[in-house]
């Protein structure tokens, strides 16, 4: 059967199991959009207000489901608008296929209207990319793009298709979905070495990252922690892999990690790192990082072993397989001394938290809720499967610290790239994928970067509760300015007069302003009872800090747990 390139794109997407795509039409993807129109019952297209959000939505869709996210944009500015979204996906190992149109082959290289070398632009931020110059290559290229995006460590793949290739016809036959690339099994010797290290340690800490999300080994991790009397901590990307209420789980560690989790990792004599890459935000000063610990690292990406932190046993393997084999091998053992230390760390953490709360009362600002109060209310009023998306900044770290999770894939946050403006797109992707209420925790700064997507949540009546932590400042940068730049609040005080409630009204959704915890609770419940999107403009204090904090380049010796005067 002869099909056009545009038809082939749609047919191969469907062949790959794609049901939803996100995008924005334009001159060089008209053929694809024509086929999207014809096939609108087979594949659902979400039109965003800006291509960046289409990429973030594809990203949020993957994080919520594990299904490869797909976004489509036209050539030139459409394609470059995807770039931040693709880079975000690259840094956080998100499986994504981005399809861009380009000018016809005969116009390539002539600086034609809306021509850009998008494969060149995205070279360092994609796992792989393609420029398809022949319609005969198109179907297999798209198949391969999905294979690469999903195999091993996931990542984004871009396929650039000139307009004449979309229009040209060739024979097409459906094919089986390509199998994922094979991952070598861990050698038995390595497994034994790892098990021996665990057996001989006194203070084990299991450190889970994004590589654990989607493996299904959550129970195995908890069981191993129980078996060896150890504890579990995670990176930002590992959040939601382990249920928050698991008593072995200490939460996120690192620059803004939970005190107990960071201290425990620093004092552990064994770190069992599973699908985690020791980013600088997680380790602080690498020379001082976990000095007394032997490190075992399992990762599917061989290039992560010994990249940031030298390890004692590095295992390149399917994380689930290697983990289970190691867990089977180790001996059950009680480590009461370690547990005693852990309890002490937990008590210290509670004391720090209490002190922070007391201090807050002393400030006499009882009216405005604290970030923790707001998130506690969210926790009590969200379902176990609710996806929480965030933007980037203080609110993100508070969400990472205080949000409670029961199921994996319920936290979408830009970790590696730290993309302000990620949240609206991610929430659109999450709500589209789950068809359930999705909560976006954002700040007034981040929200300002993609608030045009209010149009999208209204158009599709997506059940998104947008909670803006509104402090009138760029809080995280301000925190650094307070601590390290002599309170020179350079361009972080947003003297904007934006009325978010009126803005919501203008976009056609309900907006509620809250200044107390009670008001916020009522608003959040009202949102839950609503069918579509709701925006809550929630006032918080501009001098709230994210604590604890390891100063950049610092170590646990430099941890800040209290806000000074």
């Amino acid at each position: 059967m002869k099909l056009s390139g545009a038809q082939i794109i749609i047919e191969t997407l469907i062949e790959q199991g794609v049901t939803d795509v996100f995008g924005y039409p334009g001159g060089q993807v008209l053929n694809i959009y024509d086929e999207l129109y014809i096939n609108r019952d087979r594949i659902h297209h979400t039109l965003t207000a800006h291509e960046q959000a289409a990429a973030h939505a594809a990203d949020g869709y993957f994080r919520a489901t594990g299904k490869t996210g797909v976004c489509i944009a036209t050539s030139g500015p459409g394609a470059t608008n995807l770039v931040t979204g693709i880079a975000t996906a690259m840094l956080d190992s998100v499986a994504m296929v981005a399809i861009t149109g380009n000018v016809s082959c005969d116009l390539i290289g002539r600086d034609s209207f809306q021509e850009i070398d998008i494969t060149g632009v995205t070279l360092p931020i994609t796992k792989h990319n393609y420029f398809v110059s022949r319609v005969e290559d198109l179907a297999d290229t798209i198949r391969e793009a999905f294979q690469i995006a999903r195999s091993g460590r996931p990542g984004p793949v871009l396929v650039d298709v000139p307009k004449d290739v979309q229009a040209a016809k060739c024979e097409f036959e459906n094919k089986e979905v390509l199998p994922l690339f094979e991952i070598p099994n861990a050698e038995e010797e390595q497994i034994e070495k790892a098990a021996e290290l665990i057996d001989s340690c006194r203070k084990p800490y299991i450190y889970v990252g994004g590589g654990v999300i989607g493996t299904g080994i959550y129970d195995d991790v908890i069981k191993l922690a129980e078996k060896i009397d150890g504890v579990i901590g995670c990176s930002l990307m590992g959040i939601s892999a382990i249920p928050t209420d698991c008593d072995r789980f200490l939460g996120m560690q690192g620059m803004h990690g939970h005190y107990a989790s960071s201290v425990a990792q620093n004092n552990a004599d064994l770190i069992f790192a599973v699908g985690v890459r020791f980013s600088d935000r997680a380790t602080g000063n690498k020379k001082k990082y976990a000095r007394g610990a032997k490190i075992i690292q399992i990762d599917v990406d061989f290039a992560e072993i010994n990249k940031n932190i030298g390890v004692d046993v590095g295992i390149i393997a399917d994380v689930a397989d290697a983990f289970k084999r190691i867990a089977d091998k180790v001996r059950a053992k009680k480590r009461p001394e370690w547990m005693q230390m852990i309890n002490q760390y937990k008590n210290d953490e509670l004391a720090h938290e209490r002190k922070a709360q007391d201090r807050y009362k002393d400030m006499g600002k009882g009216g405005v809720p604290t970030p923790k109060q707001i998130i506690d209310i969210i926790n009590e009023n969200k379902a176990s499967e609710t996806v929480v998306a965030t933007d980037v900044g203080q609110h993100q770290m508070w969400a990472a610290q205080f949000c409670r999770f029961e199921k994996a894939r319920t936290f979408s946050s830009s970790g590696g790239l730290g993309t302000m403006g990620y949240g609206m797109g991610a929430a659109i992707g999450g709500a589209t994928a789950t068809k359930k209420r999705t909560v976006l925790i954002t700040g007034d700064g981040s929200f300002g970067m993609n608030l045009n997507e209010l149009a999208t949540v209204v158009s599709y009546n997506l059940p998104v509760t947008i909670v803006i932590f509104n402090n009138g400042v760029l809080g995280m940068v301000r925190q650094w300015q307070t601590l390290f730049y002599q309170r020179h609040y350079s361009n972080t005080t947003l003297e904007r007069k934006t009325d978010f409630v009126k803005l919501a009204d203008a976009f056609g959704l309900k907006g509620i302003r809250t200044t107390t915890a009670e008001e916020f609770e009522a608003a959040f419940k009202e949102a839950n009872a609503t069918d579509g999107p709701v925006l809550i403009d929630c006032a918080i204090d501009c001098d709230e800090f994210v604590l604890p904090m390891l100063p950049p380049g610092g170590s646990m010796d430099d941890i800040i747990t209290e806000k000074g005067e």
Partner: protein
Amino acid sequence: MNNKFVIAVYVENKFGVLTRVTSMFTRRGFNIDALTVGETEHPEYSRITISMSGDGYAREQMINQLRKIHSVKKVEYLDENSLTRELLLIKIKNELKNRQEVLSAIQIFGSKIVDYSVNAICVEITGEPSKINAFIDVLKPYGIIEMCRTGIVALERGEGSILGK
């Protein structure tokens, strides 16, 4: 410890692949000394030979990051026992007072005159980089007008092939 080392890479013989490889060097901050690329016994692959200096960490990182590039089929570290060759074209001033010395240097190094004019001699030499360096050092006092090195190509000794591994 910074050592010089050589890495051989088989890549898909396709448009843009060299850019993928060199773009990675920039992104990861690798400083390479030389790079050569050319056809191989398999028309679908090109072979890139990279020489760089660095410690064991740099070497491991380089190999790992190369292997991650989808268009890269094989990466192999070539140890000091490997055969390495480089070609140099060098143009030296042809002055009466130095002519005999220059000609004997050319002869001693087993190099070949490829162009001869009243004012200049152009010489071709192949050999290991150390030999090329020595040759350049010897010619320097006589006045080098222009020179061009290819960067090294390298093969392992013996019957094996990198792709066959």
